[in-house]
């Protein structure tokens, strides 16, 4: 059950090296190795819990902040149909955030704490959402590339060892395919349009290609937590494996559009049957993660503003619930 009150750890974490803890850890790992799912009230190592809280909450924050770059275009979508599609997509992102916050809460952290961590700037979210969307084609490129990269990451997470996270991901993945296809559909329409429209699509591809590759995270050699996450079956494939798969899937899609991937070193290697691609600018990635990307401050300011502007609604709902509760208890008395 997704019940907060029930999943508080039964016993305070024991000192490391304690024989009883070691026995529990061995049993836990054996369950993971046997592909059993871990559920909220089951015993789990504290580090497993903390890793999941961090990962699931970052994922949830990314969905919520991810509503902003596209939300920017809702009022300016080129047709009523595109507008309704975009509203539905942005609403899905909010829904994904809600599923994921629920899953994180089963680990004993409260929604309030999570939101506070996002608004205070303490929590991280995907670097990709700190890039601007100057044209309508950027909305297409986000759906095609950003949601495409997200699907690559999220499909293996459907088999993650933690039950609530895996179940949330199954729901997310079912909806994500619509996001990617509507994005590609926008790109296709522009690529087949006037020279100016095609140029707009190319510009968006140029802006989003490298940040999309960065979404898979640091290279395996620089990813210290990966091995443990693999042992715990939170992660199933390495960052580099998933990135390679994304490039292999996406380059032919770009070719079909008649657009050029902005990488002079991109080349199909017939021996390995994979595309070789140029070096990623990890200094840029680090800068964006540290809060110095093109839109970091703007995104956080927009979230804080939305949270503050909605405060009166939350207060009114709480006051109404309290009034109803009092009325009921008066009637009973």
């Amino acid at each position, binding site marked *: 059950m997704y019940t907060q009150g029930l999943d508080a750890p039964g016993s305070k974490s024991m000192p490391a090296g304690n024989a009883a803890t070691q026995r529990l850890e061995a049993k836990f790992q054996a369950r993971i190795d046997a592909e059993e799912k871990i559920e909220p009230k089951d015993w789990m190592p504290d580090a497993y819990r903390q890793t999941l809280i961090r990962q699931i909450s970052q994922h949830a924050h990314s969905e919520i902040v991810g509503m902003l770059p596209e939300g920017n275009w809702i009022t300016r979508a080129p047709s009523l149909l595109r507008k309704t599609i975009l509203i539905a997509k942005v609403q899905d992102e909010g829904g994904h955030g809600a599923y994921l916050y629920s899953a994180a809460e089963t680990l004993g952290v409260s929604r309030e704490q999570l939101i506070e961590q996002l608004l205070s700037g303490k929590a991280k979210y995907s670097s990709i959402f700190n890039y601007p969307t100057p044209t309508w084609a950027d909305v297409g490129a986000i759906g095609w590339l950003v949601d495409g990269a997200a699907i690559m990451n999220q499909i293996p997470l459907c088999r993650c060892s933690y039950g609530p996270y895996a179940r949330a991901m199954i729901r997310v993945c079912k909806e994500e395919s619509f996001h990617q296809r509507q994005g590609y559909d926008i790109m296709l329409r522009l690529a087949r349009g006037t020279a100016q429209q095609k140029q707009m699509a190319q510009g968006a591809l140029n802006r989003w290609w490298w940040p999309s590759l960065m979404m898979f995270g640091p290279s395996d050699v620089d990813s210290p937590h990966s091995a443990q996450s693999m042992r715990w079956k939170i992660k199933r494939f390495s960052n580099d494996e998933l990135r390679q798969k994304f490039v292999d899937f996406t380059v032919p899609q770009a070719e079909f559009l008649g657009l050029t991937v902005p990488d002079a070193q991109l080349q199909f290697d017939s021996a390995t049957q994979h595309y070789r691609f140029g070096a990623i600018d990890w200094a840029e990635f680090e800068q964006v993660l540290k809060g110095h990307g093109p839109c970091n401050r703007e995104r956080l300011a927009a979230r804080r503003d939305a949270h503050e502007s909605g405060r009166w609604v939350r207060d009114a*709902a709480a006051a109404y619930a309290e009034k109803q509760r009092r009325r009921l208890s008066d009637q009973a008395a």
Partner: protein
Amino acid sequence: MQSANEWPLFEIFIRARSGIDHKHVGSVHASDAQLALEHARDVYTRRLEGVSIWVVRSSDIVASDPADAEELFEPARDKIYRHPTFYDIPEEVKTL
């Protein structure tokens, strides 16, 4: 872990179509049950996933403890005579 001003948590159960059981799908925070229904509708039924929603305050759910799983469920393991395949019926006997 829930502070006083955080909306309570509700567990959401959805019947996908008439004829099948309501199934647990997740949870939402809401100020009261009516709002929980509205939120559940927005969060969990954007693609015709259901024809009926139940919401239950999470704190009202009483659950078994995984530590008790063995004593609760193991006794059923050796009662194989509860299954029809336990009984060998001669082939000549039909429709049994």
